[in-house]
């Protein structure tokens, strides 16, 4: 059943448009003078001022690898993040942990772990899929470089960004 909608009847002023345009201009001019005279502030003076301290908990910045309070690198190179990553920004080369390492029983770790920050879309799927609580999206968002190679975070850089995280599940302890 078709629904019939009655068009609103416009007054002469509305049909002329001009009063509405003038009204809009008036608002713009008021904002212009408010900002000019410093009565109102709309923008932030980046980079001197930053949002860093106001970022919400759920903010998704750059992905980074973390170590736990035992100093163990939590990543075991299962490559699930590499698999899930929609823009294919992650590259992992796994290796076996040598038998003289205190964490030799974990058997596997990343030899190389690279995240291409030109490709990364900060979606957070890597953090979500990680079965080892090893990769987290931190609050860092500003990355610059002079070349494409500069924008690839290697394992060292990722651990530097991630640092140590406490309060995580320890499934590789003695009981396992």
């Amino acid at each position, binding site marked *: 059943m078709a629904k019939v909608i009655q068009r609103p009847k416009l007054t002469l002023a509305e049909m002329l448009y001009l009063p509405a345009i003038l009204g809009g201009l008036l608002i713009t001019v008021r904002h212009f003078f408010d900002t000019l005279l410093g009565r109102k502030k709309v923008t932030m003076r980046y980079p001197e001022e930053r949002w860093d301290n106001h970022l919400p908990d759920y903010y998704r910045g750059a992905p980074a690898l973390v170590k736990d309070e035992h100093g163990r690198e939590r990543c075991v190179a299962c490559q699930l993040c590499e698999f899930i990553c929609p823009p294919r920004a992650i590259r992992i080369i796994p290796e076996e942990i040598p038998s003289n390492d205190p964490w030799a029983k974990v*058997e596997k770790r990343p030899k190389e772990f690279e995240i291409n920050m030109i490709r990364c879309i900060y979606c957070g799927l890597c953090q979500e899929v990680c079965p080892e609580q090893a990769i987290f999206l931190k609050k860092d968002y500003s990355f610059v470089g002079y070349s494409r190679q500069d924008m690839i975070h290697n394992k060292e850089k990722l651990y530097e960004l991630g640092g140590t995280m406490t309060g995580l599940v320890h499934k590789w302890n003695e009981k396992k």
Partner: protein
Amino acid sequence: MSAIAPSAALASSPTTEIPLINIQIDGQWMQFPKGTRLIEACKKAGKFIPHYCYHPKLSSPGNCRMCLVEIGTPKLGPDRKPLLDSEGHPLIAWNPRPAISCATEISEGLAVRTDSPLVRECRNAVMEFLLINHPLDCPICDQAGECRLQEFSVEFGKGESRFLEEKVKKPKQVDIGRHIILDDERCILCSRCIRFMQEIAKEDVLGFVKRGSYTTLTVYPGKRLDNNYSLNTVDICPVGALTSKDFRFKMRVWFLKETKSIDVNCGTGCNILIGSRENTIYRITPRENDFVNSCWMPDSHRLNFHYLMREDRLKSPKVNGLDTTWKSAISEASHLLSSHPSSKIAILASARSTLEELFLIKLIIELLGIQQHDILPRPQSGDGFLIAPDGNPNTNGARLTGVAANPPGAQLEKIVTAIRNGSVSGLLSLGEDPTKIGLTDQELQKLNFLIVLDILPNRSTAAATIVLPACGFAEKRGSMINLYGRLQRLNKAISPPGNARDDWEIYRDLLFSLNSPSTTTPRTFEELWKLMAAKLPPLAGLNFGKIGDLGFQLDLPWLEHKGPPPHSAPAPIPPKMPQNGNKSP
């Protein structure tokens, strides 16, 4: 599937028909040959029954209990005859106790429910038991992604554990053989590997010790799992207990692209899957083909692929030691070939080339009228199972195309003598190293020209006038004829490095450059096959697509043994039943 091929089953005599038996699967009456295992009958009926210990090519010990189903037998009337329903089918008396379908042979009137509430409950409980002591190390386990325990846990498991106690600890990272690492905690005690070593590899080295809660798989004291078929135990291990040292921690299986191809290390031509990711091969696993290799392949062959990823692969065509373009290399080669009398040119071809390549080499031979051509034969002792007594994968192809002398290798001595006394001054070495037929570096230097087509540098590429970089077995498509006359396909898994080109394209361009008539020179792979099917009688009516994944048996007049290799396809071993009478001779 497996019942079609094995020689033992067919060899008996074509007149003895295996009687068909009526069974009911989930309410449907069907017929299967006598002697079929219930689990196979259900599989053929499209009802997959989960299983761990059962393997179609091994005996059924029935120890994992995953394949439990509900079975029933015909209800008997007072006259001891089955009671029939309105459609003439027997009425079923259902057995209250489930039975394992892997060790049950079908019998007349047998009925089975593969998905009843009781069966589902059984599977759920078996899964829970199997997972009680299984470690949760899927993130580091190489089997993850192709693990039966993972798959069935998702499909039939309960998704959580009620087990709060401590898991049993067993040895981990045990080095039990040259190629194999064992993790006993992951083992679900299916005994497939033990049975493989006993029944197929015939070297009894694996067994269970400490029977009970602490049952542990291990090698017998003083023995190691060093058999040349040991990696097949890794393939059939349903979990990650047995892992290959060569593939361990290299790449997760879900990244691997699997390309169907064949093994080129000997005349058997085992069917394989090439697992590759982004132009790197990570592993090779056998592919089931009852006409050739059943489900198995030798370790030495499956591990022989690393040379394709070598850094020093030939990557650019060279003329007089300098890199050049394909165009100039080909025109230089055709200039050298056409400016020499054909009686002064010899061709050393390779029976490791594909049939297509050998056919094009034959076209070159015919076009130039070259008299002296042969292949390098590689006789070897073989192992009586899957390593054939011929190290060349395509000797029959070389014979069929006529590139090889009869018998293959008969002309080699003549060629060597002719080069030594100077009556041959130009040599084409296509995929072989001429130093292997006894020519020295000096003798190669003395030649007017030496054209070498290969994939890796060797002594002859150093001495060559023209080097043509070609493709390895995983980098091209083509076909080969195994020692028993089976035509099988190679498929392209990865791209060749640098400027290396597909061999058949090199030969084609050379043919065109030699002014071969365009009517008889194929431009595309399809045209090549059309020409081959027309020129070689055993290939009549065939094309590359028709060969199929399992190959095509050719009738080659010189073959003594046609069909499956003598030992490779063991007949399926009937379930261990006390009344079992049909023992194979």
